[in-house]
């Protein structure tokens, strides 16, 4: 039924010709991080292969290797039996591998037909051959069963679903043999998702090989013929979708040993410091209620895009409150970020490069930014910062060093140091260990444990379940904007959380 890591080295030549696409032993590392540690994958023409795995399992990296965006360090690939070694996305596209990313890459101001043939416009000398552009674009849209989309319209006038069609048409017009769809339904409505499934079936019937990446296992069950599971950069399981249950796939996704990374000193939760009732933001969250106590670590699990980040930002006043109440100690109601700092709440952003840190400023400025006296001296800033550099073990030359010079792990410690310097009572941590190495992760876990023992209240958003299971006292799950009731971690298991997060909970 489920083959665990068996990709048949026997009859190699026979299988090579049979598969449309085959990847074998793909390895890729970024600096010290091993993203792919030997991945095998194969898909035939006229087949939909679902690629599943937790966040950070290596799905995106694998697809970037496949589409030529990152070269693999090791491993081999074949396309229709011929060795395939794309050096850049253009080569991959020419070879017939089309990639549809989550974020669409269209020229928003250009028309549909120009977008479909962008970069390979038929031309008459220096002039655009509008007639054949129109013909070829129309043919591609026809093939997708969407001749209704106006070819002259600027792409930005179309809905997200229609824009996605244009992007797929672009791949089809080039004559792609393998089409990769990365989380294609994440920004679609239910109805549009149905249309997309129809399209996938249509392309499949025409003999395209399709790699379908999704978190939503019910989709995987519905659309795919076979599946491959990635975990920690390994392919850990594969098989025919019809022969396994959603349960079994989840077991393969999360089945890892929990490392002894997570210190947990016995502690007792105190009085409530943060209380949220029926909170709704602009789009997400739709409904969230929780209470957070002193000396407690509360985790929020869920998939990327479920609305966890939006929840934290709404609490912190970085996104508007539509409905519901937020109570922080004695303060009730929404407040600006500046007020939240005064109420002794602090936040660590999920994106330290875009939002969390001012990279072109030095460590001292970044640490002390939220709380500066009207007059200050650089020496005072350095003294304040030095103690946190010591306590968190930030590796740097001096507090005057630019944050952009630091490694990811040390940058993250700077972001955390800001909260410690400010001496906040409530810490909102959004993906606090994303993209940092294991040693730095362990240090962050240690800090979180110490803070909880000192009576601080901590709200952690993470996509990495073992981490939440390891450090949290209670966990709530967010699915499509709705937050479940938080339950003690002892009563939960990764399996159940995964079911709830993927929206499969109610079916089981």
């Amino acid at each position: 039924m489920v083959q665990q890591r068996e990709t048949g080295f026997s009859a190699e030549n026979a299988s090579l010709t049979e598969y449309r696409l085959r990847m074998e032993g793909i390895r890729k590392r970024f600096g010290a991080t091993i993203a792919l540690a030997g991945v095998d994958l194969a898909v035939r023409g006229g087949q939909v292969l679902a690629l599943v795995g937790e966040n950070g399992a290596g799905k995106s990296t694998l697809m970037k290797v496949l589409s030529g965006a990152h070269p693999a360090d090791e491993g081999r690939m074949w396309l229709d039996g011929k060795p395939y070694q794309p050096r850049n996305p253009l080569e991959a596209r020419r070879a017939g591998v089309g990639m549809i990313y989550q974020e669409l890459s269209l020229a928003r101001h250009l028309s549909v037909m120009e977008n479909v043939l962008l970069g390979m416009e038929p031309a008459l000398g220096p002039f655009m051959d509008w007639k054949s552009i129109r013909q070829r674009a129309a043919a591609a849209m026809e093939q997708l069963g969407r001749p209704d989309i106006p070819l002259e319209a600027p792409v930005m006038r179309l809905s997200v679903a229609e824009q996605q069609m244009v992007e797929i048409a672009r791949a089809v017009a080039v004559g792609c043999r393998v089409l990769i769809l990365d989380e294609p339904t994440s920004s679609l409505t239910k109805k549009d998702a149905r249309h997309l499934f129809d399209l996938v079936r249509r392309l499949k019937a025409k003999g395209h090989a399709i790699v379908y990446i999704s978190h939503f296992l019910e989709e995987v069950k519905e659309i795919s013929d076979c599946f491959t599971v990635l975990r920690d950069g390994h392919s850990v399981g594969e098989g025919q979708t019809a022969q396994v249950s959603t349960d079994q796939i989840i077991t393969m996704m999360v089945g890892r040993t929990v490392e002894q990374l997570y210190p947990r000193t016995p502690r007792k939760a105190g009085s409530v410091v943060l209380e949220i009732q029926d909170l709704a933001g602009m789009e997400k969250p739709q409904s969230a209620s929780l209470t957070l106590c002193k000396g407690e670590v509360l985790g929020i699990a869920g998939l990327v895009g479920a609305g966890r980040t939006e929840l934290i930002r709404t609490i912190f006043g970085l996104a508007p409150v539509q409905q519901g109440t937020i109570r922080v100690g004695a303060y009730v109601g929404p407040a600006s970020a500046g007020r939240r700092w005064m109420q002794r709440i602090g936040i660590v952003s999920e994106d330290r490069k875009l939002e969390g840190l001012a990279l072109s400023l030095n460590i001292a400025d970044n640490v002390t930014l939220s709380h500066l006296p009207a007059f200050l001296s650089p020496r005072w800033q350095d003294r304040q910062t030095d103690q946190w550099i010591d306590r968190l073990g930030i590796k740097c030359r001096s507090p005057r060093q630019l944050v952009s010079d630091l490694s990811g792990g040390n940058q993250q410690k700077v972001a955390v140091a800001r909260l410690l310097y400010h001496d906040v009572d409530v810490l909102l941590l959004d993906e606090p260990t994303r993209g940092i190495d294991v040693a730095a992760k362990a240090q962050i876990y240690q800090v979180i444990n110490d803070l909880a023992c000192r009576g601080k209240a901590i709200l952690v958003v993470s996509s990495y379940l073992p981490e939440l299971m390891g450090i949290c006292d209670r966990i709530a799950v967010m699915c499509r904007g709705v937050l479940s009731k938080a339950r003690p971690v002892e009563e939960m298991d990764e399996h159940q959380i995964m079911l709830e997060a993927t929206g499969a909970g109610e079916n089981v």
Partner: protein
Amino acid sequence: MKTVSADSLTPVSSRFGWSDLLTRLGPLIGLLFVLVLFSVLEPQKFLRLNNFELILRQTAVVGTAALGMTLIIISGGIDLSVGSAIALYTVVIALLLKIGIPSFGAATGGILVAALCGCLIGLLITRLKLAPFIITLGMWGSLRGTAKGLADNSMVYPPVTFLNELLRPVSPDHIWLLTPGAWMMLLLAVLVAAMLRYTRFGRHIFAVGSNEQTARLCGINVEWTKLRIYMLAAALAGVAGLLQFSYLTMGDPTTATGMELDIIAAVVIGGASLSGGQGSILGSLVGALIMTIVSNGCTKMELDNWVQEIVTGGIIILAVTLDRLRHRRTA
């Protein structure tokens, strides 16, 4: 925490690495270079004490306005209207003097009008949420038009007051006394530099320019910070307008055409980044000096105006290229 001991062994050796030093000294090295260059090429006319005094007087207007522009550019903004604004302020001061307001009151009035203009620019930028480039491009036209309208399309000749003396040459016997305008520029430079370094507002300017999102995350009121920056910068441009008035001894709505570009160039040569988060007052003053020295030196060598313009343009590109190279190496 156990992990700390191993990490804290990392030597916190030099507070300032070589790259830091180079970044700091970059514009000064450039200044030294042009000084030596013209001293060698034209020792007779260039290398004289009273010529240096002249250079300082020639720098005063651009240098003073560059102080404000430095704040704006550090915060990630730009002000294209400052040349027009300076013309407007000369007209305002001349008109105030003409209707009989005493000289001190007229000067203060000019600077107040400047601060109001800055307030308007700041409000437009923060309320309409448009790029400063667009807003100030609009103001570049509007302020010039206002100046011309107020002056009725001609020069405004006020009665003679001590305001005309701010940039007068100092007598050769007491050359070290410097002209009052130069003192004003230097004093303001020290104040603004101290504000950038030693006050919360100053650090917030850097934070907003380095990463506006981070500033917001840290609870900084970004809009209020920007509004104050544009007001302060405009007030400094008001002082520059006063000096320009003093130099002209009249209100001229067509003066300082294109001066905004000289001012921006001075700030950029001084090491500021147009993408924000970086820049220094000392650098901008040195940048302004480099520009004046090049034009002064070219004049002393009796080169045509067009040569000066080509050389100045080349220096801007060279300065920014060197700056980028320096940063690529440290990154």
